[in-house]
């Protein structure tokens, strides 16, 4: 058997015209692309909100209400990314022949073609990257060497930028496609069949919407309580000690001894003023009960009822002025959630608590015993557990 000569290889690669499916039409691409653009827009906007919520001292204060705000935006972030998976795969399928288009002749045409190719390569690379890393992060799987949060944030800007450039380039085609019938052949590539083959365009679109719906229903129960029993692929069933899931246990963070020691004291510091409180001291103070969600950056969330001492009451003990910024430190020595900053509007909120009880029982060790921070409209990673120290910083 003779191997094909190298000059035969380009001829063996299919050409754009070799693809004749009636379904690979701009009429289909634009309709799937519209919804894909909406999911990416939602993921980008909610991603910005999450970045803002996690910025320690933002120039514009993150709001404390509604208390369920971050729960909704971050749940939307992950749901939108999940919904984008079937949409992206179908959309890329409809345009796959374009990948095999041979470059045009002529310097100007070749340059424009090359630039568009680069912009699409950036868009596809960033889109796949965002979905893959986002879904892996939701399941706390980190098989990479980059820093997830800032990298995912940077790529969010790149993905949305490349998407907007893509829309700018394709706008006339998009507009014609969306204002014409889905069966219109006006913008089809040469070589496209004149009528339906295996299925109709409407059939493919309905199937794509169904695939998107199934993907969302199968996963959204991690944050939407009434879907909990439907979402068989959700990262969490929503159960755990005291009815609430846990990210990191006390044993994992190495705080069991410090958190259960009889010598435990909560230190509250404002300049040279300092008080040290035992757990009994905290229990003797006025308690407030509030229903607040734990809403994790990974997209899962759950509501709970917490009872504890408002942080503002503790700040009063050291004479901290209204609107003080407070650094909350955990007993844990490692981990990204070891410290968090309470901006002035959070530290003064009546429902920003050092919680001692969860659902009417003392906090379990894994939920942050002896006391944890819980505040409205705040990412779970900033709801510091096993709190050892509050320090007024501004």
């Amino acid at each position, binding site marked *: 058997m003779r191997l094909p000569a190298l000059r035969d290889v380009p001829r063996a690669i299919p050409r754009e015209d070799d693809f004749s499916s009636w379904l690979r039409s701009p009429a289909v691409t634009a309709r799937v692309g519209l919804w894909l653009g909406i999911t990416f827009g939602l993921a980008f906007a909610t991603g910005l909100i999450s970045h803002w919520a996690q910025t320690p001292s933002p120039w514009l204060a993150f709001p404390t209400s509604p208390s369920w705000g971050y729960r909704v935006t971050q749940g939307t972030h992950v749901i939108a990314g999940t919904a984008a998976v079937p949409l992206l795969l179908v959309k890329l399928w409809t345009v796959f022949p374009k990948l095999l288009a041979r470059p045009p002749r002529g310097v100007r045409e070749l340059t424009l073609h090359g630039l568009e190719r680069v912009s699409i390569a950036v868009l596809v690379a960033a889109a796949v990257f965002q979905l893959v890393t986002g879904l892996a992060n939701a399941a706390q799987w980190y098989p990479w060497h980059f820093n997830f949060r800032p990298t995912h944030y940077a790529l969010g800007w*790149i993905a949305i930028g490349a998407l*907007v450039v893509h829309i700018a*380039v394709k706008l006339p085609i998009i507009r014609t496609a969306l204002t014409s019938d889905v069966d219109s052949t006006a913008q089809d590539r040469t070589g496209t069949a004149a009528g339906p083959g295996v*299925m109709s365009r*409407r059939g493919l679109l309905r199937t794509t919407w169904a695939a998107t719906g199934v993907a969302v229903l*199968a996963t959204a129960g991690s944050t939407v309580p009434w879907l909990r029993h439907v979402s068989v*692929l959700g990262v969490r069933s929503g159960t755990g000690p005291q009815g609430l*899931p846990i990210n990191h246990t006390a044993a994992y963070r190495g705080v069991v001894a410090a958190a259960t020691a009889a010598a435990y004291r909560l230190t509250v510091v404002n300049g040279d003023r300092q008080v040290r409180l035992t757990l009994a001291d905290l229990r003797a103070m006025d308690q407030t009960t509030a229903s607040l969600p734990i809403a994790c950056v990974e997209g899962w969330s759950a509501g709970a009822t917490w009872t504890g001492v408002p942080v503002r009451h503790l700040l009063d003990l050291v004479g901290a002025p209204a609107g003080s910024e407070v650094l909350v430190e955990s007993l844990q020595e490692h981990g990204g959630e070891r410290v968090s900053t309470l901006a002035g509007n959070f530290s003064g909120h009546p429902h920003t608590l050092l919680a001692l009880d969860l659902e009417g029982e003392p906090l379990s060790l894994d939920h942050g015993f002896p006391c944890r921070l819980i505040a409205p409209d705040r990412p779970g990673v900033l709801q510091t557990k096993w709190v050892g120290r509050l320090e007024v910083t501004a």
Partner: protein
Amino acid sequence: MRATRVALLLLGLAAGGYGGWRLLDLGWANTRATLVWLVGGVVLHDGVFAPVVLVVALLALRVIRSDRLAPAVVALVILVPLTLLAVPELGRFGARADRPTLLDRDYWLGWSVLVTLVVAAVASGTVARRLMTIRGGDDGSRDGGR
């Protein structure tokens, strides 16, 4: 429209440029690790996933009876993306003994149930359409069906 397109183009370039600057600002080691995944994603889609889909489609056209092709496509368009996005759960890569409330479902069981439900729904939908067509109703053929 020209002004809109130019404005969108500039806006997109600015946003993308800002993202690029944020990425480079994280240091070269981080950028290099990111590039591996960026390029890897495109290679996996364009070089592996898409060709596999093409080959499967060509085989299906020869192997599957023509009136069963559309139901097969419907089932695969729903189930393949669903399976891909469930890879972190099915593989339980992020699971750890000391993190018992994460990945705390039987994902293969859930996945099997979903596959069964989707296949059953597509099959019963196909049968229902065929019955309606046989009875002389035009619902099954009006829009070309599936």
